[in-house]
Structure formats: C-alpha cells, structure tokens
C-alpha cells in the first residue's frame, strides 16, 4: 500500500468524522489528479462536500478561506506546492484573518501539497518553496519526513486543536509514492509542531526534513557514525526548544534538506543555533542541500541531497 492510498483512506475518514469538512481540489469528485480523493469519490455520503471548482489558481486559496469563514473546515488538495504559490495573494489574506480580527474570526484551512522531486515533472520540484511559505505571516507549514508519518501528520494538521491558523502540509512526492508495510498507522499520533529525534546518537546531530530525513538515516547507517537524526517536521513554527537541545547534545551539526541551499530554513536553523547553542558548538554548522534550481525534469532528483554528501558532512563535523 503506498502513501497515496493511505492518505486517501485517511482523508475519507476525516470527512466522515466531521461534517463541517469539505474537500477542494482539481477533479476532487472523480478521485483527484493523484488519487487522494479516490475513497471520498466512492462514498456517495460525501459527494455534497466534495467541492469541485473550475481552474481558479489565483483565487483558490481565498476561496477556501471564504468557505472557512462561513463555518466550514476546508481541506484543499493541490497538485503541487506551485499551486499554493499561484494562490499566494489569497492565502496571505486567509493567513492574516485571525490577526486582522484579533482572533474573532479564524480560517482553519488545511492545504495538502506534494513537493519536491519524484514524479519526473520538474517545475517546482527543485525549488524548496517551503522557505517562502514559512515567511507568510499567520501561515503554519509542516513537512512529512517519513512515509509512516504521513497519516498521523495529516490527522494532526486537520485537527486544528493547537491553532486555527491555516496550515500547509507538505508531502514530498517520493514519500507519496513510497510503499509502507503492515496495517494503517492510524494508531500513531503526532504532535503537530514538535521536532522528532528519529535516531539518537552522541557523535553529531543531523537536522533534516522531508526526503532528507530518510537520506540522513541512510548516511548514518552507511557510515556507522553514531549520530542523532532530528526530523524538524514543523517548519513554521519551529520547535525551537527541541532543536536547540538536540544541537547542544552533540555540538556537531549537519542540516540536510532538499531544494536550494541559500536563503532557506537551514540558514534559519544555523542562526538559531548561533543564538542559543553557540557555547556548545564544536564545529561549523554544515548544510547539505540539493542543487540550485532551475532543474530540468530529467535532472529533478538532483534537488535531493545525496547520502554520500551527508556522510561527508558528518565526517567533517565529527573530525573537526
């Protein structure tokens, strides 16, 4: 069972659990471009809440915001994070709603956005747009780091219990197509804005999100370096306490992520550690990223950091 099928089932369950939820997206009533609404489309009980719209990229995010202002809880399925960008002017208004009204009106919109390489389409795949989204005031951004986390993160994001601010759930395309074994992991729960130590070691700390979490684990396994691997997971807001603690624990830091190297969240983490962990650092903070975009469709996997480069970075910080 791949992650798309798991999420399709989970989205249908979310729709059945709360009748205020509506599902928006291209071809949403016929299963959606990726099949994420396939289970919903097969359930006649849900048909009235599958909101098929014409192609309205510039207004799609504001449209979801308006639905939320009318008391509904929209889940928006977009073909890719680029479509969030096309609606950015509207999303910005939606994200500012709680601030504008001193919290009296909120717009709990969940946007599920595939990102990164994996479908061979190029386009936004190499652009690491999460850094830009994280700068939109009032918008929350979380990113799935491992296939088994996709469903619990979706559920945590759809709950809107810690905040009613809109949220973008980024799901790397390579994770969407990953196969996962065993039963559905619905019993897993995830706290939404919490970073996770997915492996604990003493030699160094690798901070990663998205596809890079798996690659970092591979690098640790290949090199035998006893490193901690932290899935940053919540990009806005950052779980600063956990991140700083994990940085102080080893003092040797690698940040690994897909997409371009500069002007991104890795730089934000480096600044955070410079502010709050400088006395604990024993080596320069080393970033490992993808190649700079634009990348052609054929080259889109170059947007990922490689296991070898993460391994070299680990060696560099541990032998400093």
């Amino acid at each position: 069972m791949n992650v798309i099928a798991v999420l399709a089932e989970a989205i249908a369950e979310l729709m059945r659990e709360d009748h205020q939820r509506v599902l928006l997206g291209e071809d949403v009533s016929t299963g959606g471009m990726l099949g994420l609404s396939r289970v919903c489309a097969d359930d006649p009980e849900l048909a009235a809440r599958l909101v098929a719209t014409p192609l309205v990229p510039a207004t799609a995010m504001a449209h979801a915001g308006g639905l939320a202002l009318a008391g509904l809880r929209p889940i928006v399925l977009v073909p890719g994070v680029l479509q969030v960008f096309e609606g950015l002017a509207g999303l910005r208004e939606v994200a500012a709603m709680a601030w504008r009204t001193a919290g009296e009106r909120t717009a709990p919109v969940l946007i599920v956005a595939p990102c990164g390489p994996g479908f061979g389409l190029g386009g936004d795949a190499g652009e690491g747009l999460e850094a830009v989204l994280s700068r939109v005031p009032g918008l929350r951004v979380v990113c799935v780091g491992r296939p088994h986390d996709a469903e619990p993160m979706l559920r945590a994001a759809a709950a809107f219990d810690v905040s009613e601010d809109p949220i973008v759930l980024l799901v790397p395309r390579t994770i969407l197509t990953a196969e996962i074994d065993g039963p559905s992991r619905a019993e897993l729960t995830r706290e939404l804005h919490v970073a996770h130590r997915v492996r604990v070691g003493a030699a160094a700390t690798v901070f990663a999100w998205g596809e890079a979490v798996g690659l970092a684990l591979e690098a640790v396994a290949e090199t035998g370096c006893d490193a901690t691997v932290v899935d940053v997971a919540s990009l806005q807001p950052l779980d600063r306490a956990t991140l700083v603690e994990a940085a102080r624990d080893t003092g040797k830091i690698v940040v690994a992520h897909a997409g371009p190297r500069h002007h991104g969240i890795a730089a934000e983490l480096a600044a955070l550690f410079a502010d709050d962990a400088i006395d604990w650092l024993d080596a320069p903070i080393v970033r490992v990223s993808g190649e700079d975009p634009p990348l052609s469709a054929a080259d889109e996997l170059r947007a990922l950091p490689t296991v070898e480069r993460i391994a070299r970075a680990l060696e560099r910080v541990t032998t400093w």
Partner: protein
Amino acid sequence: MKRDAMEPTPWDPEGATAVLDVDGRLADGALPAGLDVRHYYKHLVAARCLDVRLQRSALPMYASSAGEEAPLVATALLAAEHDWIYPGSRDAAVAFTRGMPPDELARQVLGREGPSGGPALPGRVASAGLRIATTTDALGMQLALAAGHAHGQKINADGGITFALCGEGVTTTGVFHEVVALAAQCDLPLVIVCRSQVWPSGAPAEAGVLGDSVAERARACGLWERRVDGGDPIATWAAIASASARVRDRRGPALVEAVVTQLVHDPPAHRDPIERLRRHLDAQGAWTATFQDVVEAEVRGKLERAFAALERGGGAA
C-alpha cells in the same frame, strides 16, 4: 438651467438603465416594491456626510466616495441581517448604513482600533457582528473570499447570501474573472456589485474599462446581470433588489454594474445621486429644506461628536 431629459451629456452612461430623469421624475411612475424612498434618502445623505467628514480628517490615501453612494447604501439596506457583505477599501458607508455606531465607526476609520479590537487600518471598517468582512490587501481578493463564503452558505443551506463590492478597476484582474467563472460554475449565492466610473474624456489605462460594459462581460460568462445608472438611486435600488432576490431564491449568482460619477470631477448636478433623489422627493412634495437640515444636522452632530472626541486626542491616525 432646465435641460431636455432625453439629451444625454458626456457624463451620462451609455446602455445603463435609469428610471429617474434629470429632474427626478419617475419614467414609468412606479417605485420598486418595498422601497421607502425617504428612509433611503436619509441613508444616502448620511453616507455623504460621512464622506465629507472623512475628507476633513485627511486620512492617508483616502479617496472620496461622493457620487458613489447609491450602490453602497442600497446594498447595505437590501442585505438581510444574516447576509454577509465583503466591501472594498473605500466602502465605510456600508458599515454606517448597516448600523455601526458612530463611535466605533470613528475608531476604526481613523485607524485607532481595528475590527474586534484587532489592528487598525485607516479608512476601512469591518464588523463580524454586522456581517461586514474585513478588507484585503491584494487587489480584488475580497471577491474571492466572498465567493468562498457564498459557497459555504450554499453548502450549509443556511439561507444567507453574500454581497461583494468592487470597482471597475478590479475587473481587469485574474481574480475577478476567476470569481465570475467560479460563481457561475458552482452556482454560488453571490451578488457582485461593481461601481464603474464615467470618464467623459476617455478612461485612463488603470480604469480597466475602455468603454465596454462589465455587465456584458459577466453576461458572457453566464451570470445574470444589470447595468444601471448609479446616479439614479431608484434604478440602482431596483437592480440590486432584483439581483439579491434571485440569488436568495438560489437562481444563480448575479452582477450589478452601477455606473457612477465621482463628484470630485465636478459633473452636472443630476449626476449626483442624492441631488437626483432630492429632486424626485421635491416633485412629490416629500422634501423641504427643513427636512434636509434636520437630517443633516442629526447625522453631522453624531459624526462630529465621535470624530472630534478622537481627533482632539492627537489628530487623525
């Protein structure tokens, strides 16, 4: 100077329905059902007094709405209590007409306090209690939020409808066209009220209309539409009333284009909707100078107390 009612000036819009002639005579003698003309007139005068007071406050980037009152006031009066209005950034008159107390209006519009105690934005007003949405930064984005809200009202089947206000400049944006497509395709309970300006010497590029009709564009997209003379408050009322009645009956979205003349351009007096309706009331024997004085004095007094109290504390924000 008396002028032949049939002879249009360059200020009179083409292809826009009017029922009051330049002297305020009703063309077919019949008023729209349910319209209390004096009540409507008082609100129009109140909206003008608000505009005059706002101009005195010298708000940053404030542009006068004088001459555009008819579609604003008619929308606010025709919206039912549970309907929502998504205004643009120059539409404070909507809140005043819908009953916002002058003190709160002054606090918001002078930028002392935003809606619900939130951040302030001079010139703009919103109120969840009065079902008036906040304005947007991005041009025309209030239309997209309004379409979503209307969609929610449709799904919730709560009987409410949504009004979205805009000017003709917004009609060149992608947002406008996407909202029209969305509203038509999804059959949304949405009334778009667009104010188009008359440009006797040719529209500037940023006006976005080069003599064409926004209403015709909407009709081509499948919306019910009316293009009316915004200088004629009765025709404007009738069009918005028809639009909202249709939309309330879930017969699809509607667009009303009211062609208005901003008084800052010094048009002929009959282009002023308040003067046109005054002439109508006068011809009916329903207007006196005393009536006018009393209406204005009451509104001005209320506004002045509210505004002056704030401005004494340190001028406009």
